[in-house]
């Protein structure tokens, strides 16, 4: 997995190779994984969503490697971050939690052996389970958990890295094959869980890389694994035929029962498969899902409508898609296999957001709320127009909202509007807490203007206050300030100075009418000792009783506390 001679540990390069292979294998099988979803449930495009998530993770880890990040642990952390930021759909969110746990398990180690791999897989499973109140068994959660258990058992037998990895894959395949036993809806449809298949597919790629085989998007095909006997048949048919014919129309349709007449699945399957290539027809007597490549999509629909009600009809011209991709329309991330890329379109709607902030904690909160671009800066170091422009241009979308999060940055941000061909709106937030309130109001289904209005309103709905220290003796707005004193600002205006942070904090609370507020959020600064924030919360509780106070490690420089009062 690392160099050719040393297969006992995996280093950063080995991890990169394994991840690339895992991603390539998933790319190759994404469409087949989509096809496993028989019922029109949310997150029907499991393969696509997992692939988009994995591609975002790979892009992040490669960017980090290019900038000099080495070592398995640090790279895994970048991978997890990328997956989180790029997670798509339910299965993508779960995958991002799995990768996050994996990264946490590797920790700071530059290399990992079989034993640490087992630890990381256990952490991956634990993390994935923790983010849901009622974990459903028979899904990708089960697959990663059993894989981790198998890895742990393998370590006691033979701790060699490749042996543990092989055991992991075997465990995952076994768990996948048993998903229909655990989940009735899979059993009824005669398929294995799509997300679980995605996990197995990723592991298969990694195992190939560990055995020194190279896998690229265009060449490598791992034999499909897991599944019930019937399912294996379906997947094999799909794999054998797929990839040969990239002209014609990719035709997808669901056939539902008409007036509760059972569908003759075998007959319908046979008739439809005769009409094209790369056909996947799965389902039961209530519902059938059809995926087929054909020169004549009309004939497929004509045949299908004879049997039942049609739903979710989608027809794509594959040759147009191929041309579009070749012409570079799709951008850089999905080019490895243009044919697959063509069928995996990114349909993210809504505006994208650039926010200005500094401090790890604040940045994490903003990103968690959906800010795709972060420009570092804030109170003491305002970003340039150019930096903001670059962040706007770097986003793939055409509609961008900028959150300046500082009164001194608003004008700079407004310059960007005229400098780009994209549609840009500045929501004039004067502090990071205002920016956070604005982000929480984003609705990705709404238009740019609607969002800008809702965000502006949300930002104005909170009072924000800041506490820092005076750098010189002066008088501002009638307030006398002595160098070194703690000073308090409300909505960007200096209102009070005192010798202690506590005194300023309570004055700010009084002036923001905290008695009638529902929630105070304190963002603790970089230079504030950890215990000080908690002590401050205690003091507020003593004075204000039941008022809810939330302490967040903002990590911002220079400012002891940022505060929002709602």
């Amino acid at each position, binding site marked *: 997995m690392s160099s050719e001679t040393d297969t006992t540990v995996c280093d950063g390069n080995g991890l990169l190779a394994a991840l690339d292979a895992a991603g390539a294998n998933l790319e190759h099988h994404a469409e087949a994984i989509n096809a496993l979803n028989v019922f029109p449930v949310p997150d029907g495009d499991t393969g696509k969503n997992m692939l988009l998530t994995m591609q975002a993770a790979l892009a992040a880890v490669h960017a980090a490697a290019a900038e000099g990040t080495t070592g398995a642990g640090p790279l895994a952390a970048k991978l997890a971050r990328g997956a989180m930021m790029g997670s798509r759909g339910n299965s993508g969110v779960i995958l991002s939690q799995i990768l996050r746990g994996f990264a946490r398990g590797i920790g700071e180690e530059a290399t990992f052996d079989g034993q640490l791999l087992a630890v990381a897989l256990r952490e991956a499973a634990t993390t994935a389970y923790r*983010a849901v*109140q009622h974990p459903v068994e028979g899904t990708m959660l089960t697959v990663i958990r059993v894989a981790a258990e198998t890895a742990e058992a393998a370590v006691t037998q033979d701790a060699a890295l490749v042996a543990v990895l092989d055991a992991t894959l075997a465990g995952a395949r076994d768990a996948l094959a048993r998903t229909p036993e655990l989940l009735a809806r899979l059993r009824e449809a005669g398929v294995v869980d799509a997300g679980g298949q995605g996990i197995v597919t990723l592991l298969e790629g990694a195992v190939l890389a560990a055995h020194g085989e190279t896998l690229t998007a265009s060449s490598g095909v791992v034999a499909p694994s897991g599944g019930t006997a019937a399912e294996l048949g379906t997947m094999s048919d799909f794999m054998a035929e797929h990839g040969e014919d990239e002209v014609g129309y990719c035709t997808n349709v669901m056939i539902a029962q008409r007036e509760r007449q059972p569908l003759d699945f075998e007959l319908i399957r046979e008739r439809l498969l005769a009409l094209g290539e790369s056909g996947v027809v799965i389902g039961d007597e209530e519902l059938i899902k059809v995926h087929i490549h054909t020169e004549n999509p009309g004939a497929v629909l004509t045949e299908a409508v004879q049997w039942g009600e049609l739903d979710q009809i989608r027809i794509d011209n594959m040759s147009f898609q191929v041309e579009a991709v070749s012409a570079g329309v799709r951008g850089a991330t999905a080019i490895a296999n243009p044919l697959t890329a063509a069928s995996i379109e990114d349909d993210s709607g809504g505006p994208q957001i650039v926010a200005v902030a500094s401090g790890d*904690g604040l940045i994490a909160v903003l990103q968690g709320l959906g800010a795709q671009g972060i420009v570092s800066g804030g109170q003491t170091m305002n970003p340039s127009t150019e930096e903001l422009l670059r962040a706007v241009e770097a986003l793939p979308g055409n509609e961008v909202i900028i959150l300046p999060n500082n009164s001194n940055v608003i004008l700079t941000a407004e310059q960007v509007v005229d400098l780009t061909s994209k549609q840009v709106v500045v929501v004039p937030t004067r502090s990071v807490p205002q920016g956070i*309130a604005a982000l929480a109001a984003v609705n990705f289904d709404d238009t740019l203007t609607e969002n800008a209005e809702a965000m502006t309103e949300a930002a104005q709905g909170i009072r924000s206050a800041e506490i820092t220290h005076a750098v010189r003796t002066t008088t501002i707005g009638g307030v006398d300030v002595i160098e070194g004193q703690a000073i308090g600002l409300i909505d960007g205006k200096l209102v009070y100075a005192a010798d202690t942070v506590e005194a300023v904090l309570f004055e700010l609370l009084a002036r923001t009418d905290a008695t009638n507020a529902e929630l105070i959020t304190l963002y603790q600064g970089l230079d504030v000792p950890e215990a000080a924030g908690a002590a401050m919360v205690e003091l507020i509780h003593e004075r204000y009783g039941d008022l809810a106070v939330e302490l967040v490690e903002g990590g911002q420089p220079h400012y002891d506390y940022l505060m929002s009062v709602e």
Partner: protein
Amino acid sequence: MLRRSRVAATSGATGRVEISRGAIAAIAQDALTEAYGVVGMAPSGLRGNLAYYLRQADPQRGIEVEVNRDQITINLSVILEYGVRISEVAQNVKELVKFAVEQALEMKVVAVNVYVQGLHFSDDQARAGEKA
């Protein structure tokens, strides 16, 4: 003027079916326990707040159902696990709840509004580890 109703109702040839808002909330609540990324509910009176977290007492806390004629709107106040992509989980929750309710009732859900009231840190050690 439309009066906000306590029930959703459909009338057919064989009679009328009424579904209480509580029943609709129960369906939503059931779907939410399986919604990936959601680890709790928050009191819905505190809309717009960030990072507000209380342990769950009433299972239907944080679920508001509004019915206008046969139009159902559901407001959810949720607590998410720290480290998930919030926008994506919120989108998934909308789809999941809409799907569950529509499938159970065969009535149209016109809107599912998700209010993310806070984030839950499963363990502080992990949080510290990731910051390093």
